């Protein structure tokens, strides 16, 4: 373990695991509590259109992904409030359209698309220094934002209509949170991959929710559980030479199952 940290790629991966767990732990708790997991899935997959565009235009695919996910996040927030489009259908259309655009652009890009698999399935061992700085900055912004406005975020997520009757800036907070969700997703792509990100945003929360029923406690334990899963997955992928994204998700599910059984046994012993 100590030997491993001496490698740059491994210390970067470790930092990525720490900060991704922090941002995904908090944002995931918001997503799960507000029941917008499907919306988040839509944003995630739409971002693949941006990855494809990035390859085609010769810019960093993550920049393309950021543009696509922000636009889709704001688009969903706008559509669901202003028009009578059925929200889940709209998300499904966007979801598949984003993937389709991505595939078309990758196909049109001359030559070979390097690292395409790492965007789809994650590759925590190839996270660059710049990406670490971005992930760290975002997760600290999220942490401070939630610490400062915890109650308001909680109240709006719980009962938006009531919050509107109290004249607080509900719309502003909703858009801001959608932006944070979109950015969290984009910066987690390298860790878990577009196809697997949703699990970083939901499995730790589901595991924490087995034992605690309060937003802040779920967020706190999600960060720890997420980090445990990311670290064990990282080590597993190194030792057995398997893809890191999949290894992380696998470990998270194992942790969830262990905690679920632990809870069952605890309840049985208590009675």
């Amino acid at each position, binding site marked *: 373990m100590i030997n491993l940290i001496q490698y740059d790629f491994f210390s970067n991966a470790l930092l990525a695991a720490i900060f991704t767990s922090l941002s995904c732990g908090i944002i995931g708790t918001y997503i799960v509590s507000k029941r917008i997991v499907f919306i988040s899935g839509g944003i995630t997959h739409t971002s693949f259109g941006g990855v494809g565009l990035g390859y085609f235009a010769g810019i960093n695919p993550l920049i393309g992904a950021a543009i696509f996910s922000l636009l889709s996040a704001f688009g969903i927030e706008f559509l669901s409030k202003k028009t009578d489009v059925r929200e889940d259908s709209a998300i499904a259309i966007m979801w598949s359209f984003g993937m389709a655009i991505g595939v078309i652009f990758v196909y049109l890009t001359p030559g070979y698309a390097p690292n395409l698999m790492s965007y789809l399935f994650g590759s925590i061992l190839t996270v660059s220094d710049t990406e670490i700085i971005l992930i760290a900055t975002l997760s600290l912004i999220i942490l401070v934002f939630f610490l400062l406005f915890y109650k308001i975020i909680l109240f709006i997520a719980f009962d938006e209509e009531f919050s509107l009757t109290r004249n607080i800036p509900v719309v502003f907070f909703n858009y801001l949170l959608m932006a944070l969700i979109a950015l969290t997703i984009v910066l987690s792509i390298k860790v878990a991959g577009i196809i697997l990100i949703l699990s970083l945003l939901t499995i730790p929360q589901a595991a924490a929710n087995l034992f605690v*029923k309060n937003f802040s406690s779920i967020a706190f334990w999600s960060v720890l559980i997420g980090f445990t899963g990311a670290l064990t997955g990282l080590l597993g992928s190194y030792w057995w030479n398997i893809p890191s994204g999949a290894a992380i998700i696998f470990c998270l599910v194992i942790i969830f199952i262990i905690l679920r059984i632990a809870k069952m046994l605890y309840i049985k012993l208590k009675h």
Partner: protein
Amino acid sequence: MNTRQPILELKNVTAGYNGLAVLKDVTLPVYAHDFIGVIGPNGGGKTTLVKVMLGLLKPWKGLVKSILDEKDGRGIGYLPQINQIDRKFPISVKDVILSGLIRKQRIVNRFTRDEIQLAAQMMHDMGIEQLAKKPIGELSGGQLQRVFLCRSVISSPSLLILDEPNTYVDNHFENELYEKLKILNQKMAIIVVSHDIGMISSYVKTIACVNTELHYHESNIISEEQLQAYNCPIKLITHGEIPHTVLGIHNHE
């Protein structure tokens, strides 16, 4: 008729959704210490009326005038229909009640000691102080209704609007609720929406019948003939010699 100024007034309001008018040309003045029962058939526009009054839905035509001062954080207290609440949301009873105190001018995180004290006092008065730290998902319908009543009045609003407060609660709590409302009515105007006018008629002072149009009835005694005239087809059974208590037939679907 009345020389006082209404605290909230709807004037010739037409409102609805997706091009379909649910309320047409509705006029309703609300004065301090009013206690109005809003009745009407399902889909008749009761909830739409509430949304217009709360400012959640902008009317297509007409005016909503309000002198309710928002600067002191009072304004309108609101108790929504309980089935609109996500009961699995990870929030504690205490936080739900405190959320009644948030306002534009104060979106910082912490509540003052006085505010927390006030929330504790309200929970005590409502007999739910032992539930303070519980997540709302562990409460019964009646307990939840008490929590939301606390939330809606913790800011001492000048007007309290309750949307179907008697659904999912037992008879015992229903009586208790209306007794509480009677006391609150000394301090604030109250509008209570109900599909079941039997219970509310003995507590409210006046009745508004909503079925796209609104007819205001300046009394809490109403007969089936009057309801017919108001185009408000709710069937009543009357008890006693004079129709001072009316029970609506429940439409269980």
